[in-house]
């Protein structure tokens, strides 16, 4: 499908295409799978989570359970589960395969274990309001929650364990009093899993980026990224780039080595004129562009930079209400942003009709070109020869039964074999050893995460509709 789209079409959105009426404070597209970007989860200021169908611009699920604003959302790997983190100090995991109507039992590969009549699967309580929380990319029974008090908690639902992450390196455990002091001064402000799931990246209030092994919970690396607190962290879909937003109002892009997690600072983006703080950050689906949702008091702006050249390409200017959150669609040039009013704006680009697509064999040209006639273009071929040639051409083997697997975004896989560049003779033993140690550690984390897997095993999961329920009046009329 992607190959049939105009390759020269603009790759970033331009204007608000439609507005979804909501009470949102956080939004997230489902990032992976054949239906990547078909759903938009909106966390409400009133605690209600809505799942919007991006194609129809209609709500397919309303999830009621929180009593305060939902500031963090996360989709499980195949979209069956949704996590919502709220200021009411709870995290709820929702099973989207459940329909409330007693007679509606979707017969899909996802429905094997579900006999429950509520989509609320787990409620996890914390001691402090939850700022954000994410699923482990390989197993939705592992959850990483960032609390507003500056603690990051790793919850493992398989054994019920909860561990507050600390700045501890494996060999240093017992020594160093000054270490303790340093730890006290800084607390963790944000935390995410790497997209392959083998590492935890946390940002601290003193500008450090800590890379933590989720299985052992030891800090593997400490990297000084900024001099002020890191507010937000976000990976691109491939897991090779990370963007940080710090209190100094600068966005920093770092490249990540997928094996050793070595961070290389690439660029720094800043709005030098207005000194804009950033409320939301992210990458485009292909990782080519960087997005910053500006925290202006009087404007609704999304800045778009080219990641490679660092050029500011576009500033999307929306309605007057300030922006709270935004997210870039995983496959298309579409951005969703939330205004303080709670409305969700969908930004798109309008591409002109490709008229050549209506006639077979036509091609649109920019200007006239001389047509070169093929030598045999108008030769009359003997019919039996033609039939034989055609028959021969049609002899090739084709596989019509295997569904394509490379046409939609999937999370990157952990590296469980030493990359070939580490085997080159010019590589010193020391580097190779580091590589091998990392491969082993990634493998260990993967084994740890894959133990007792969840029921989110069907890649083609989608949200079934309950068509028995009555629609609200505004909904019935649609948007247009």
């Amino acid at each position, binding site marked *: 499908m992607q190959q049939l789209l105009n390759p020269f079409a603009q790759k970033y959105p331009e204007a608000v295409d439609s507005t979804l009426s909501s009470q949102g404070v956080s939004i997230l597209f489902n990032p992976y799978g*054949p239906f990547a970007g078909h759903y938009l989860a909106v966390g409400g200021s009133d605690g209600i989570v809505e799942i919007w169908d991006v194609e*129809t611009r209609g709500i397919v699920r309303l999830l009621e359970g929180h009593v305060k604003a939902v500031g963090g959302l996360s989709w499980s790997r195949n979209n069956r589960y949704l996590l919502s983190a709220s200021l009411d100090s709870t995290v709820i995991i929702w099973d989207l395969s459940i329909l409330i109507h007693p007679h509606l039992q979707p017969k899909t590969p996802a429905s094997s274990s579900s006999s429950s009549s509520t989509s609320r699967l787990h409620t996890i309580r914390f001691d402090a309001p939850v700022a954000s929380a994410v699923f482990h990319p390989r197993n939705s029974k592992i959850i990483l929650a960032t609390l507003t008090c500056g603690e990051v908690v790793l919850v493992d639902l398989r054994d019920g364990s909860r561990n507050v992450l600390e700045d501890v390196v494996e060999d240093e455990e017992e020594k160093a009093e000054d270490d303790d002091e340093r730890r006290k001064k800084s607390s963790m402000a944000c935390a995410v899993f790497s997209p392959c799931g083998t590492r935890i990246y946390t940002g601290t209030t003193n500008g450090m980026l800590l890379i933590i092994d989720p299985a052992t919970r030891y800090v593997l690396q400490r990297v000084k990224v900024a001099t002020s607190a890191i507010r937000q962290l976000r990976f691109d879909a491939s897991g090779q780039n990370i963007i940080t937003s710090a209190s100094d109002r600068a966005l920093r892009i770092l490249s990540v080595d997928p094996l050793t997690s070595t961070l290389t600072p690439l660029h720094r983006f800043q709005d030098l004129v207005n000194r804009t703080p950033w409320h939301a950050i992210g990458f485009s689906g292909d990782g080519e562009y960087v997005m910053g949702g500006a925290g202006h008091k009087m404007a609704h702006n999304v800045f778009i930079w080219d990641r490679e050249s660092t050029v500011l390409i576009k500033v999307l200017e929306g309605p007057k209400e300030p922006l709270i959150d935004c997210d870039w669609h995983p496959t298309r040039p579409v951005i969703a942003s939330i205004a303080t009013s709670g409305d969700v704006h969908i930004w798109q680009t309008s591409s002109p009709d490709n008229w050549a697509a209506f006639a077979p064999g036509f091609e649109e040209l920019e200007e006239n070109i001389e047509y070169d006639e093929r030598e045999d273009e108008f030769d009359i071929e003997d019919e039996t020869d033609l039939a034989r040639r055609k028959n021969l051409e*049609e002899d090739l083997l084709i*596989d019509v039964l295997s569904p394509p697997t490379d046409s939609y975004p999937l999370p990157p896989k952990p590296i469980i074999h030493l990359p070939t560049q580490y085997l080159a003779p010019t590589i010193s033993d020391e580097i190779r050893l580091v590589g091998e140690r990392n491969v082993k550690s990634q493998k260990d984390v993967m084994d740890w995460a894959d133990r007792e897997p969840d029921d989110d095993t069907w890649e083609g999961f989608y949200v079934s509709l309950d068509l028995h329920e009555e629609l609200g009046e505004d909904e019935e009329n649609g948007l247009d």
Partner: protein
Amino acid sequence: MAIPPPLPNGTHSEPPPEAEAGPSTAPRYHLSQTLSAHSRAVTALRFSNDGETLVSAGADGYLHFWNAESGECIRGFRAHKTGINDISISPDSLYLTTASDDCTSLLFPLYPPPSPADEPLPLKTFTGHTAPVLSISFSPKSNLLVTGSFDESAIIWDVRRGKVLRNLPAHADAVWCVCWDAEGAMVMTGSGDGLIRLWDVSSGQCLKTLDNDTNSPVSYASFTPSSYFLLSSTLSSTLRIYNIHTSKVLKTIQAPGVYISEKYPCPAIIFEAPDLPSGKEDGMEIDGNSNIDVKGPANPALIVAGSENGKIVIWDLQSKNVCQVLQGHLNTVVAVAVHPNGRIIVSGSLEPERSVKLWRTN
């Protein structure tokens, strides 16, 4: 099988023996049951994805629901006052929709709650076409529907609201068939004007148009399970497999004298041949050398289509050879469906017959 002697010049290419082996390993189907309930011709047949239910629709406007394994009639009711041309079952096996001569489409639950009323009311009515609706198809996520009509347009519907989402001014003749790709991103329309068009669902733009060298009306078209290819059937007794990206015809499939399709559209269905009872375990073998799991289909791809002489023809797609011809109908076969496990083929034909024939393999 005699091995041909090697040719001295080596230019003549003989098909490899494996290719010829295709038909001999193919399953054999036999007539197992005849299901009678309709009072006029059976025009559309569908199995639900869960494999439990077979639904038949007739020119009498009735829908009948059958147990797919036993062939027992579960229930039936009159959905339309006019004939039904096509039906579609949502991939999650929750809903069923119809395409009717009365220019509307209706949506019913596939497994309704038990109720005293014999004729259940539709949950949704899709009104918008100005001529009979000829074909209907649920999107892979069951949230959208596409319909093709005699009014030369195709409409994408928002199932939940029951409203038009996009109108595709598709063709210069009736739109005989509509379908979705596996990811729900593209819609395909096939028309009597001889063209097949691919549409981007999110923008409603035409992405591509395919024609055929005889400009014959397209009576049926569908994506293959791999969305790189599509299968089309034209009213020139010809089936074709296209590469979507290059527009090239990769296979031209015919059976002169056996397969005739000149007037009436009939679906042609690609399916994977079921495992043979002898228990060939080739498909279970895992290649120890590769770490990437390349799992090609274990069995050959077959195509089944109904013919205007009452026959049902099964081809091996790869070799383009006819594997089997099923005889049993007296008139043009217009409805064919294959059970998800590939072991049951059902068919329906024009009057005077009013029954569904069920063909099985062991």
